């Protein structure tokens, strides 16, 4: 019996009269780096918001670390990075991180630790609105890493970043997942070639899960050369 950090059963989300997620079930094993992959607009962000507990849901159940998503006890155990950088653009990198650290009750040295982790050393005193888009996204990621989250929910954290930095961030995600007290990561991306960096994949299309498995198993099952091919094969099979 696998231990699931995130357990979603029969999730239904309706937004503005449109059914975004009709009936979604999925599990994220503890300590995995699970990639949530699918084209833009397929409901990835809505699913992540439901996991964090900020999305109104019309039915079903989302449990995180065994508790209902959105429970007060989960608030310092989940780190959430939204797609648009949700940091104060008129404050410096450090001012942002110090504030969020204080809200979380994280140790004093935590802001320096996360600045280092996302490769923003030297930019501590720069105002966020003077940074590039990629740097801003990293400030937002740094804020999600503060404290000691057990589950990290990251919405397109590597989009638009230079390849070297992207490799470094994936390295960081795996380090967190391999730690003595492992962190579970749920990372969305619409770039299929990031699939190979994940230990598990959730492939999504039009509000439904196409497949949930390891990258290797998906390739074997579909006989495709890469995940993009596997995705196409799965869409063909379900049509």
């Amino acid at each position, binding site marked *: 019996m696998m231990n699931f950090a995130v357990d979603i059963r029969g999730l239904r989300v309706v*937004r*503005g009269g449109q059914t975004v997620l009709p009936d979604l079930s999925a599990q994220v094993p503890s300590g995995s780096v699970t990639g949530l992959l699918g084209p833009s607009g397929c409901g990835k962000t809505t699913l992540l918001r439901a996991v*964090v*507990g*900020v*999305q*109104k849901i019309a039915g079903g159940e989302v449990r995180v670390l065994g508790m209902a998503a*959105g429970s*007060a006890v989960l*608030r*310092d155990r*989940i780190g*959430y990075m*939204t797609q*648009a*950088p*949700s*940091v*104060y*653009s*008129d*404050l410096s990198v450090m*001012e942002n991180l110090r*504030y*969020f650290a*204080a*809200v*979380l*009750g994280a140790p004093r040295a935590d802001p320096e630790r996360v600045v280092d982790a996302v490769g923003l050393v030297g930019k501590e005193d720069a*105002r966020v609105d003077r940074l590039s888009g990629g740097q801003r996204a990293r400030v937002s990621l740094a*804020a999600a890493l503060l404290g000691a989250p057990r589950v990290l929910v990251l919405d397109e954290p590597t989009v638009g970043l230079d390849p070297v930095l992207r490799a470094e961030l994936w390295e960081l995600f795996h380090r967190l997942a391999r730690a003595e007290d492992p962190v579970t990561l749920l990372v969305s991306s619409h770039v299929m070639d990031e699939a190979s960096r994940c230990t598990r994949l959730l492939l999504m299309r039009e509000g439904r899960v196409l497949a949930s498995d390891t990258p290797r198993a998906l390739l074997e099952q579909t006989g495709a050369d890469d995940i993009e091919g596997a995705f196409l094969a799965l869409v063909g099979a379900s049509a």
Partner: protein
Amino acid sequence: MSLRRTAATARRVLEQLRRDPRTIALMLVVPCLLICLLKWVFDASPHVFQSIGAALLGIFPFIVMFLVTSVGMLRERTTGTLERLLTMPLGKGDLLAGYAVAFGTVALVQAALASALTIGLLGLKVSGPVWAVFLVAVLDALLGMALGLFSSAFARTEFQAVQFLPAFVLPQLLLCGLFTSRDQMQTVLRWISDVMPLSYAVDAMDEISSSTSVTGGLIADMAIIAGAGVLALALGAATLRRRTD
């Protein structure tokens, strides 16, 4: 609620303000300039300034705080920082109290400058204690803040948020007794002015300028302003939803 989180929030809001010296200048200098202008406009009939000067000391903090809070809170909503904060162990009370402490501090400075100018330099005569002027000004500022927070829930853009100033504030300004005494208004208008909190701000300032002691009427006015502030804050807190569409 937690003291640490409230203090951190207040500090963060003040840091943001400090990064925006133009807004600070607008908040502190504009009321003073307008009071000077008013004094000058009524140069030929000094009794007008005497009768409305104190009321203005209560109205300016209200308007300024309404504006900065509605735009500030709207920014929190639209940039996603509010959503991030609400996924963290931050109570709504921590956030609101943090804003109240930060903007309340600015309101205190603003009230100090404006009353020093009005009472000291421009010679407005106030019979009651000056601390009462201060207290009413700060209560008005907090009321403006609470209403601004509430109104921000109905705006989608900063453009709309600013337009709420005429919608929420101008009717109160017209009916608060500044332009004409409230008991001379048509009955219906009088009723409306009775339920608008700014009316009590003007009443309170009138009490202070005409009476040497702290009257029961003044205490009642202050209680109503504070009560309206708490009510607006509760309504505003209800608009801070952890779960949204």
